[in-house]
């Protein structure tokens, strides 16, 4: 049930994107009044990571669509918690927005105590992209396939090291879901960010790592090799890369990014903000640019966001509780 839900949402989004090409009329009426000045988007991670770069694509096309600047404000700290614990203090006028990572905001408040927010505090108006996670090994690793990885883990329970970013984040969740589905036990080694996680993998300091397809796009990923992608279907960018599911292990794990707004924002403003960012995502070029950078553009419009978020919560709440134990 969980698996089918984002799939339907994706179809909705895809249909929406197709429709947009022919009748764009549902957004511009509102967009003409907003924005009349620069909009700030707070990103709870440092510059250069997958979250920041996805926001920078928005930044570029936002200017083309609205004529106004989208200012990216990096506020790294606490694995994003610093930005999410403050996002409800933003002005509710549509000019102070926050990037929201799903399922991060489901996992973190449960996996870590005292992060200063709960999942219910987070309000989003539009999901704009997803990034699938991949299991990768160093390029010179003897492990060639996912089967061999599982066999290695079975041969030495708990001794195969698997890196990821942080504790209680998406990589940690992928590690857990994969271990459960494959029936194996490995050692999770947390790193500060995607960059250091990948460096440890490329240097062979860990046997494998959960990371993002974005790290292999644009010629990246030297010194590491993807075994399988935890997406629901193969990516056009990597047509030869099998999914975990087609190899017989029943799991997939992606991250989604959304435009977050403060709780106090009235619904008409929320709809306007959502419509403008929908228009940005429908701009010719942005989808192709993001696909080439390893993203899977995936738009969930305003009326669908609450339902999809609910499904993501239902899937990941048990994962978060398992990670604590």
């Amino acid at each position, binding site marked *: 049930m969980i698996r089918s839900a984002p799939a339907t949402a994706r179809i909705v989004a895809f249909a929406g994107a197709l429709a947009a090409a022919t009748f764009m009329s549902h957004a511009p009426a509102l967009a003409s009044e907003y924005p009349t000045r620069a909009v*700030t988007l707070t990103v709870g991670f*440092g*510059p*250069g990571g997958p979250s*920041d*770069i996805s926001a*920078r694509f928005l*930044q*570029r096309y936002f*200017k083309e669509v609205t004529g106004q*600047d989208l200012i*990216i*404000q*990096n*506020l*790294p*700290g*606490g*694995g994003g*918690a*610093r930005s999410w*614990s*403050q996002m409800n203090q933003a002005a509710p006028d549509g000019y102070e927005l926050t990037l929201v990572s799903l399922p991060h905001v489901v996992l973190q408040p449960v*996996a*870590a*105590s*005292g*992060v*200063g*927010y709960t999942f219910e505090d987070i309000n989003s108006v539009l999901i704009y992209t997803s990034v699938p996670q991949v299991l990768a090994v160093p390029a010179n690793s003897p492990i060639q396939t996912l089967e061999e990885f599982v066999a290695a883990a079975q041969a030495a329970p*708990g*001794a*195969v*090291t698997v890196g990821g970013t*942080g*504790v*209680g984040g998406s990589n940690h969740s992928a590690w857990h879901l994969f271990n459960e589905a494959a029936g194996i036990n490995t*050692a999770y*080694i*947390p*790193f*500060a960010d995607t*960059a*250091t996680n990948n*460096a*440890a993998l*490329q*240097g*062979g*300091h*860990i046997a494998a790592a959960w990371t993002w397809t974005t*790290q292999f796009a*644009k*010629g*990246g*990923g*030297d*010194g590491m090799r993807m075994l399988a992608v935890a997406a629901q279907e193969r990516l056009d960018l990597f047509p030869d890369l099998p999914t975990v599911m087609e190899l017989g292990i029943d799991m997939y794990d992606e991250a989604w990014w959304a435009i977050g707004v403060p709780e106090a924002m009235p619904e008409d403003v929320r709809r306007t903000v959502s419509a403008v960012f929908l228009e940005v995502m429908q701009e010719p070029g942005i989808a192709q*640019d993001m696909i080439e*950078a390893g993203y899977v553009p995936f738009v969930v419009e305003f009326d669908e966001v609450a339902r999809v978020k609910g499904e993501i919560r239902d899937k990941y709440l048990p994962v978060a509780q398992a990670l604590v134990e």
Partner: protein
Amino acid sequence: MAFMEYALAALSLHHLLVVTVGIVVGIALGAMPGLSSTFACAVMLPLTFTMPPVTALIFLGSVYMASTYGGSLSAILLNTPGTPQSIATTLDGFPMAKAGDGNLALSLACVASVVGGLVGVLALVAIAPPLARMALSFGPAEFFWLAIFGLTMIASLSEANLIKGLLSGLLGVLLSMVGIAVVSADTRFTFDLPALVGGVPIVPATIGLLCVPVVIDMVATKAQHMSMPLARSGFRLREALALCWRGRVNLGRSSLIGIFVGILPAAGGAIASLVAYTAALRSARPNERYGEGEPNGIIASESANNTTVGSGLVPTFVLGIPGTPPDAVILAAMLIHGLQIGPALFVQQGDIVFTFAAGMTIASLLMLPIGLAIGQYIYAAIIRTPKTVLAPLIALSTLLGGFAIQNSYVDVVVMLVLGITAWIIGRLGFPAAPIVLGLLLGPIAERGYSQAMMIGQATGNVTGMFFGRPLSQLIIACIVVALVLPYVFKWLVAKEVRSHAPAKH
């Protein structure tokens, strides 16, 4: 020669203009206490969207390069590092300025920065792919030992009282633990304040600890102007060049350190300059008085930090891993401009790499005249301006800087609280520099230790993880030497004195 073609491509009028603007903007932002190089690059990033990719990279590179040098201006003249990279520059730069050699110190910093900048670009062009692989051999255990090596510098930062210095260092390490821990997801010392879940923000904390006490002192002392005599006027460029030539071993060693620390992810210019300074201090000749206005201190710090500009781009270009914090902005720029990353960049888009490198060479060279001119102009302005104007101006710049980086009032509060605390405990003999060192190196040591421990436990070889790897052993040897050498020197000097003593009778 192929390089000449790239140099010519880089030498177009358009690029010269971009480089010049980048240098002026970079120096100005870098010299403002509180505005870091990362901030300077991030603020300039949207301007590059309309530029061709290589022009965008050259512009951001120039801003980065110049802001790294710009930080030394306030380090030397005001004893407050303009960027974290110039923390070590304050140690000898300000004493030189007080002794009447401010203009010489500025020229020295400029020359050392230019040399460092060129060495870094050379490393990028010449040996990027093998260098990047070497950086990868640094694992969690090596990062742990490297941080410990950096922490041995506390001993030299606190000559007056080692115990107080160590306590300051521990306070820094303690401050670095605030927030959600990377390796355990424990929330530590946040006192239920959401503002602290992200930890103590490093840049505002550094500004607070090192700049605020200076401003308070400026107000608390009577003199009307900054008491900086001028031994000789002019740029004193010839003297600076002679000093650099005399300190060429130091210059070479510091640039090498800049290359190695620059290519390590999670380190950067601040740590490179501190490590280079520590190394210079450890190999000091008896007539060199580090911490009291030793020109070699400035040479070490400024050449190392500017070398990281080029060398930090090695892992950025080859591996897609930023070597230093501002490189993350440059990485973002590359992805947005649709550039390939990895060895493919060198093979398929080699012209971009080489035109960029040529552009950075020009930027390094242009930094000499522009940097010298701006430096002396600011110097003259600071000496002539009464403290009643200067102190509020610096205070304002510090406050704005602390706020601007993340648009956060919390950062300003952190800056002021730590700054006032640093001033108070400074009066009791606890130095502030070791606090910064602990804050910078504490997380690297902690993460390295925990990760190495976890990997060691999983693979059943904890001892081998920490002590069995050749690179670790090399760093451990450096730590032992750093800790023991001063005592050996003292013992040798004492022996010398004793053997000469009978002659007095």
